[in-house]
């Protein structure tokens, strides 16, 4: 269901969407792990709000214990320092992410800050979207109605500065 909901999105290349089971045997809790990989259509950007809406339109929005471990995205945009935070501005969609440390890459934010050298630069970043872990209904509900002061956060795992 989640795979189909993602493949239906206008900005997603439906042919790129692949669901890969990660376990051969059914675990005791009955929910085998898997990964759904997907790419944006050329020239398009995946809107996470629309992706959440598409998944929420299925029965995954309620009455299930199916869940997600993480959502990792690769995004290209302008990275700049704002107050104490590093912020990724995803142009065209209005989405903005505060970049935070990920346990698997603890100094990634610091290295990115040094690479920026105090100025805003175009970069490609990969990281896990905070909040996309837990039962599907809980995650989708929280994403659709974030707290007033809650910032979208991306736990940074890798980055590449665009060469000028």
């Amino acid at each position, binding site marked *: 269901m989640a795979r189909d909901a*993602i493949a239906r999105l206008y900005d997603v290349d439906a042919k790129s969407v692949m669901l*890969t*089971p990660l376990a051969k045997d059914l675990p005791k809790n009955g929910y085998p*792990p898997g990964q*759904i990989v997907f*790419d944006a259509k050329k020239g398009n950007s995946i809107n996470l709000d629309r992706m959440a809406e598409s998944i929420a339109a299925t029965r995954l929005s309620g009455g299930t214990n199916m869940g997600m*471990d993480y959502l990792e995205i690769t995004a290209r945009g302008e990275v700049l320092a704002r107050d104490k935070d590093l912020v990724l501005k*995803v142009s065209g969609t209005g989405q903005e992410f505060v970049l935070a440390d990920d346990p698997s890459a603890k100094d990634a934010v610091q290295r990115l800050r040094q690479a920026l050298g105090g100025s805003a630069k175009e970069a490609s970043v990969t990281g896990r979207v905070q909040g996309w872990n837990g039962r599907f209904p809980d995650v989708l509900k929280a994403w659709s109605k974030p707290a007033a002061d809650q910032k979208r956060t991306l736990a940074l795992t890798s980055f590449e500065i665009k060469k000028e």
Partner: protein
Amino acid sequence: MRSLRSVAVLGVLLLAALPSSAEVTKGVLAIKGAQMS
């Protein structure tokens, strides 16, 4: 001629509204509850 000009103006407006480059380009969603085929 007037209709051709209208089409040209509309074309320019549509091009201006299109995003100039890809932004969130790739995703991986790790889930529990994948159906195995």
